[in-house]
């Protein structure tokens, strides 16, 4: 151990506050290599860094040192205190006696997995690959879809504790991307703590944190992400997260699957309308049942009413209670299934669904018809391709159910009106959330509802175009006037 290496060791140790894991390797008294154990690739370390350095340890400048190391990512640095974070993310430091600073060599080998199939957004056609937790790999994956110099990757400095690295990805075009500046501003608004995970990151980017519906979507599919970038949207990638944040999004975007575009226009349209119907069913079906049976049984025709009454004859509860019990048990099943390992979860779904359902009817707890409606409503909510959106939809069913139980159809209208107002008030990165329904845009509507064969890829939409003064765009500027800090 040379005096130089001891000096470096004590310096680094104090910077790390005595934390273990630091390895100091002294080479011939002049050169010292420091790295964190377990975070570097040992084979590379031995072969490409230590081996050439041990052979000629008599060198006097950083440049010659740098030439000796056969590793691409090898940069000089000035201050030891600047590179502590790099050291902690898997870089090796090479220090030379008598010089300020040293070399920063990238040997990082953070544990990561190989890309696998997309699980939360599975499709039948199209690419199967999904993002992983490594941002480098994710960007590489994305670049393989958009091989263009126009795809800009921008590292954002986040004032967070601990440091989280994130990247913005967007297309560089003639007109400035209006969202990049906004995102930068929001990220730097305050010092955040513990921003681990892109869902948390998404929260600091939202326009209104009290909104019931997600404003941005999370995606793990590179093809979907690439498509969004081509549409002019901005993607935020967070290190250590397999899900990227895509924004701005509209309400309709959450109901579109990449598969719609892969299939023929008729099939795509059919699937989208199916999802729209599923949305209506999952929100309104059980509340309508409750409203009709509590207040408006005149509305049900005689033949149907008879079977309804027959199935409800043994049920001692009011319809609202009956429906709430069933809805809560479905939610319990879903939550239990999500928490358990896949194999157990499946069994539990079957056991819970069939046993509880069958037994509840036989015990006179609920009616047959209600079980069917609740199951249909749950099924409807699962057709939404975006999990965040489908959770929101399942959540808003409960207040809807309760107002339906107290005020009947009037309550349903009241809560629907409330939701509509809420949706109309919502913005995503300052853009209207209900676009292209409001502000209406016929072209956008056609692209949302039916995918015409002539325009399968409508790259730039009105939503992502920046509105210049007197521009032709029909959408007026919707950036909130008071919100923009």
């Amino acid at each position, binding site marked *: 151990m040379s005096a130089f290496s001891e000096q470096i060791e004590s310096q680094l140790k104090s910077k790390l506050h005595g934390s273990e894991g630091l390895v100091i390797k002294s080479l011939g008294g002049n050169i010292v290599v420091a790295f964190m154990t377990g975070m570097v690739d040992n084979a590379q370390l031995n072969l490409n860094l230590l081996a050439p350095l041990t052979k000629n340890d008599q060198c006097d400048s950083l440049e010659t040192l740098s030439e000796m190391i056969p590793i691409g990512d090898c940069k000089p640095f000035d201050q030891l205190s600047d590179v502590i974070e790099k050291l902690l993310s898997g870089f090796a430091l090479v220090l030379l006696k008598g010089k300020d600073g040293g070399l920063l060599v990238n040997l990082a080998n953070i544990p990561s997995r190989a890309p696998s199939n997309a699980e939360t957004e599975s499709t039948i056609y199209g690419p199967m690959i999904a993002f992983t937790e490594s941002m480098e790999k994710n960007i590489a994956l994305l670049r393989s879809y958009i091989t263009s110099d126009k795809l800009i990757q921008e590292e954002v400095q986040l004032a967070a504790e601990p440091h989280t690295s994130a990247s913005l990805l967007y297309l560089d075009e003639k007109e400035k991307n209006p969202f990049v500046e906004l995102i930068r501003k929001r990220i730097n608004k305050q010092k955040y703590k513990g921003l681990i995970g892109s869902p948390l990151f998404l929260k600091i980017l939202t326009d209104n944190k009290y909104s019931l519906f997600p404003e941005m979507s999370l995606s793990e599919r590179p093809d979907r992400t690439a498509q969004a970038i081509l549409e002019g949207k901005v993607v935020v990638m967070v290190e250590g997260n397999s899900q990227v944040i895509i924004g701005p999004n509209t309400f309709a975007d959450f109901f579109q699957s990449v598969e719609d575009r892969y299939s023929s226009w008729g099939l795509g349209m059919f699937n989208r309308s199916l999802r729209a119907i599923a949305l209506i069913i999952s929100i309104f079906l059980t509340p309508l049942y409750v409203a009709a049976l509590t207040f408006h049984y*005149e509305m*049900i025709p005689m033949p149907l009413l008879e079977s309804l009454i027959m199935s409800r004859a043994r049920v001692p509860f009011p319809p609202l209670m009956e429906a709430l019990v069933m809805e809560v048990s479905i939610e319990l099943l879903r939550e239990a299934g999500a928490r358990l390992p896949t194999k157990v979860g499946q069994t539990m779904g079957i056991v819970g669904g069939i046993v509880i359902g069958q037994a509840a009817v036989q015990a006179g707890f609920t009616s047959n018809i209600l079980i069917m409606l609740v199951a249909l409503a749950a099924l409807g909510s699962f057709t939404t391709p975006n999990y965040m959106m489908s959770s929101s939809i399942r959540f808003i069913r409960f207040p809807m159910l309760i107002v339906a139980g107290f005020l009947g159809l*009037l309550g349903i209208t*009241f809560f629907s*009106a409330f939701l509509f*107002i809420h949706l109309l008030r919502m913005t995503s990165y300052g853009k209207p959330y209900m676009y292209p*329904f409001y502000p209406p845009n016929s072209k956008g509507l056609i692209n949302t509802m039916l995918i015409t064969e002539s325009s399968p890829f409508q790259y730039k939409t009105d939503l992502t175009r920046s509105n210049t003064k007197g521009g032709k765009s029909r959408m007026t500027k*919707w950036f909130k*006037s008071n919100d923009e800090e």
Partner: protein
Amino acid sequence: MKVLSNPPENIQIHAYLLFFVICNVQIGVGIFNFERYIYQASKHDAWISVILAALFTHFVMWLIVRALSRYESADLYGIHYDLFGKVIGTLFNCIYMLYYLCITIVIMRNYIDVIQAWIFPDIPTWLIVSLLSILTIYAGFGGIRVIIGMCMLGFVVILFTVFLFYSSLKYAIWTQLLPIMESGVMDIIDGAIRMSFTLAGFEIILFIYPYIVNKERTMRYSQLALLFANMVYLIIMTLSIVYFSSDQMLRSIWPSINMLKIVKYPFLERLEFVVISVWMLMVLTGILINTWAVTRGFKRMWNLNQKVMLLIVIALASGITIAIHGHTAIEQINKWLGSGNVVFSLIYPIFLSGIVTIVFKFRGRKRPDSKGGTS
């Protein structure tokens, strides 16, 4: 206060959105019972009255838009200041604001009346008032964009409702329209005047005009909206003439709702429950636009915060609405306001456009450089 009003660019709207706004102010809770009032006057020639009234509204709209286009970007509040000076202008503005407050109250109370008669006989008035107030405040705080968005939704509701009336065609006896022109000309005109209660509201354009980006298209879309609303009224009027016998018509309080009773599907009947409930959206847009016009007045004249004023206006309207009891009282108020409607939405705009024309002729001769009427 300035005569011209230039709202910030980010809340300006395109002229075609005006279509939805005017459709919504034109078609409101009045659609449930307007047939009987007209039928009382002009019997089975009521449809001619509707056409007459409709043509008149088109004419008045033409006058209003022409008068507005003489100013660059002014609303009624500014025009009053420009024409009559500060004191009288303020007075006139206050009268208009009071009128819109009354309209709000009448819309609310009429709707609650329908609900109490058809769906929930025992529901307390304050409950529905508070539901409507919550929605009004929530949407009103969102600003004009949200209000117009709700109007678009309301338009969809109107479309669906009109299609529901299709079922009554099966029971139509078309000979009930004959003989044409059996009632006297005076009766038909009387019917047309009665129609005005239902047709009022389009003068809201006097307040929205500054918000329109492409003002040259205002005329087209406002007339189209009127055309749509008038067609809806004409269709429903004609349908109720051929559907009801004379006696039935005069005895039913809400003929449109009675007509919806026969709509029947294998899984659903008595659709009037659905329509009355969903009509809450139409009532809501009416309240929203009217309260917006009132709060806009506060903002224009005294620069008061529109959100705070909305709360006050809603509290006031709710209080008065709750205080009105019984169907006869509502009928009485409807009658009073019916004459108010004729004045505020038909006669006064004609008068106003006349004054604007004369004043601008005079100004044009005196100082041709000051076109635009800034003072």
